[in-house]
């Protein structure tokens, strides 16, 4: 059977690209005009507000203290808190929002592979959240170190290798958004409410208190391992994490998490039905 009856249709590759871009565009529009966006703005912007208040009230005079504070902010606030909740809220709603709004059939009735639909929505989520968080993160750095003067900042960034570290930290955020987002996406496909997130957060936040074997079953353990600038923080900080995974173990963990949850999502999506009356 010829399922492409008109001559207006473009070649497969162009058509697929167009379809991906359309769904990404749709996803971004859906995020930008919803209450969830306020969650992103507030959680991502809080460090910016705190740093500004600190600078205005009692500026940090020591460069070492400033670096230490910035690192702690990244490791504790971003990795252990804000990214988790941002990824949970946005990742969970990737499919769930379409179901709750009863608009899923508009996507599923199109001649687009469902895997492509969910991949494009996932990509749209990454684009929106990572762009904003990276911008807020870099702006936080800029505000925190501006009191030391531009020359000091330039030396820190380009001679002390801080620029590379910042890029690496943005990459770690991307990874965190991707990993937590993948888990949340699957949960949003299975569950109607995000109650699982409480349990998941307690698990991830409880990392320092878990036995060493169980630490390897948390995502944050691997995120901490690949975050640069460990030397800035005291050694006692890292005792909580126990043995730090190697680079190979981190890469393997990422592949396993993304592969498992991504594959599970694709499996579930293929069998998913538009049954709004039961949601």
């Amino acid at each position, binding site marked *: *059977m010829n*399922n*492409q*009856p*008109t001559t*207006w*249709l*473009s070649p497969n590759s162009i*058509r697929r690209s*167009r*379809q991906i871009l*359309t*769904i990404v*565009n*749709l996803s971004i*529009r*859906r995020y930008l*005009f919803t209450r969830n966006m306020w969650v992103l703005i507030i959680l991502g912007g809080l460090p910016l507000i705190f740093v500004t208040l600190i600078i205005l009230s009692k500026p940090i005079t020591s460069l070492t203290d400033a670096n230490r504070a910035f690192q702690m902010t990244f490791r504790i606030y971003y990795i252990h808190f804000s990214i988790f909740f941002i990824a949970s809220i946005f990742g969970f709603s990737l499919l769930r929002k379409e179901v709750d*709004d*009863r*608009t899923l*059939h*508009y*996507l*599923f*009735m*199109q*001649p*687009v*592979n*469902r895997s492509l639909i969910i991949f494009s929505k996932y990509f749209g989520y990454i684009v929106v959240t990572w762009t904003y968080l990276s911008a807020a993160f870099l702006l936080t750095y800029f505000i925190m170190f501006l009191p030391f003067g531009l020359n000091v900042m330039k030396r820190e960034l380009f001679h002390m290798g801080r620029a590379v570290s910042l890029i690496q930290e943005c990459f770690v955020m991307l990874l965190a958004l991707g990993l937590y987002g993948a888990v949340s996406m699957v949960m949003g496909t299975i569950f109607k409410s995000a109650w699982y997130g409480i349990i998941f957060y307690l698990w991830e936040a409880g990392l320092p208190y878990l036995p060493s074997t169980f630490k390897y079953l948390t995502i944050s353990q691997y995120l901490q391992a690949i975050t640069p600038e460990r030397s800035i923080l005291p050694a006692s900080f890292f005792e909580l994490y126990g043995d730090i995974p190697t680079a190979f173990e981190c890469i393997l963990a990422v592949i396993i998490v993304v592969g498992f949850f991504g594959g599970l999502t694709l499996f579930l999506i*293929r*069998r998913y*039905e*538009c*049954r*709004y009356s*039961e949601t």
Partner: protein
Amino acid sequence: MNGEPIIELENLSRWYGEILGVNRINATIPPGITGLLGPNGAGKSTLMNLMCGLLRPSQGRACVFGEPIWNNYKAFYRLGYCTQHDTFYESMTAIEFLYMLLSLRGYDKKTTRLLAEQALERVKLQEAANKRIGSFSKGMRQRIKVALALADNPDILVLDEPLNGLDVVGRHDMIELIKNYGREGRNVIISSHILHEIEAMTNNILMLSHGYLMAEGDVREVRGLLKRHPHKVFIRCAQPRRFAALLFELNSANSVQLDADGESLVAQTFDLDSFYLHLNEIVLEHNIHISLVTVSDENIRAVFEYLSESNHE
């Protein structure tokens, strides 16, 4: 278009837990316009969702142009579906809504824009193109759904209660739109619980009740199979009382009832062919002037009522 069925339903069943949606439906939908009839809860929307691949069959399968539709996204190039759900991307304007979803079908920008604009013109929403869907009335929302379904002229248009929410003029326009779509050689499957609206568009029907298929085919042929129910023939003539007396003498007339207006009568007969034969003989022999003869129950409503009675017995 040849006579090959466009949709084939093979032992199709769907349950929601213990609740029956549709059960063991075996039917073929021919080319043209087909009406899917049944009261609320009959399983029409379930059947349409199964036909359009939005629900997975519990048993059996639904095939569109010979290919199973479930999880067959490529077949959606040939399908356009207007669902019963009154939900949209509310922040979008009408043209944005159509443009975005048409983009998913793989057309270039210029063609997508053209198709979207043409679709809005067909449903007479061109003046509301740049208005947010969230501000639309119920009738406008219904029309935008139909616009999306038929925008790129799919081979099969599936419409679930498309006349809901439309005023009298809107209903008339929509019926004409659907009839024209059928005249263009395309196929339409339309559901409704309002029988005369379907009757205005087609004689080809599928009747559902409580999840079961009660009848399929031309409404007149279906009627002819209902041998338990005598045909009702409406006759308007100059001398109804005399004519009624003459009819009683015929073996093929079971009963004759005079109409309240005093100018017509309704005769019931199991054998329509014999009745017509004798009717002609009476008219010629006794010189009775007849102005109208019509079978008053060869219509969807009567057939549906008869079938519903049979189902309950």
